[in-house]
């Protein structure tokens, strides 16, 4: 059981440190690469939370597809010269940092206080199986095509719309 604690501590430390690195990096490419590390650490945390399928999705879709798309666009736009400009928004920065610290503190406090485990739904047919016993993918697949059928179909339409919209936006000339 100590192993789980060890993995949790390592993964969350990596996630938070690389997220901070994302925040403080000046060039967008380095920000994206730091965020890739964060997402891998989040995938490890997902495995710890008995969600290996979500962890795989995290790595494949987020780290593998979305962030590569970001890198692609950043390199396409050639944004390196903008990174050197000096920061001038002093009041904005001060208020942002204060607001983030206040909101973050409140959120951490509230989730810590209210996070006591509610009564588990042990009788639910949607109960998550233990890691390695049967796997959760059959359960998620069944849910996807029964309880979540309408959102699933709506999602496919949304993805189609996104493809068409992205094509349209990149074809058209804006003046």
């Amino acid at each position: 059981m100590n192993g789980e604690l060890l993995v949790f501590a390592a993964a969350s430390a990596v996630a938070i440190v690389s997220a901070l690195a994302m925040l403080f990096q000046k060039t967008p490419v380095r920000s994206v690469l730091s965020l890739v590390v964060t997402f891998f650490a989040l995938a490890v945390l997902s495995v710890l939370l008995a969600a290996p399928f979500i962890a795989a999705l995290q790595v494949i879709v987020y780290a593998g597809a979305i962030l590569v798309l970001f890198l692609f666009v950043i390199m396409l736009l050639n944004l390196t010269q903008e990174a050197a400009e000096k920061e001038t928004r002093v009041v904005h920065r001060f208020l942002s940092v204060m607001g983030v610290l206040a909101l973050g503190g409140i959120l951490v406090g509230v989730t810590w206080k209210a996070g006591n485990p509610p009564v588990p739904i042990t009788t639910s047919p949607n109960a998550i199986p233990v890691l390695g016993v049967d796997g959760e993918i059959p359960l998620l697949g069944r849910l996807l095509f029964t309880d979540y059928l309408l959102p699933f179909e709506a999602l496919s339409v949304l993805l189609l719309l996104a493809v068409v919209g992205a094509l349209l936006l990149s074809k058209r000339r804006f003046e």
Partner: protein
Amino acid sequence: MSPATSAAAAVSVMAVAPQAYLVVGTILFAIGLAGALLKRNALSIFLSIELMMNAVNLLFLAYARMRGDAAGQMVVFFVIAIAAAEAAIGLAIFVALFRARQTVDVDKINFLKW
């Protein structure tokens, strides 16, 4: 193993306090919020928003594990799929914006501000 016993086991075997996951998720959310407020490059702001969505995903997974219910995992599935669509559209908008204005600095793109 029946669903009932497996769910009870899934809740009971957690060696790390579930609140620890929630705290990690909220810290990541706050970092993402700071990035969205402080960054000037529109792509970096977008990246910070992705981090915020992932932090919330972690909270969903933690609550799903606490309750022993897979509904939270389904929500995360949909969030990831919608994030993919959103990234495609958002990046296309930035490419179009860069073509029109030759910048993605949010301080210089203020033609909707006044």
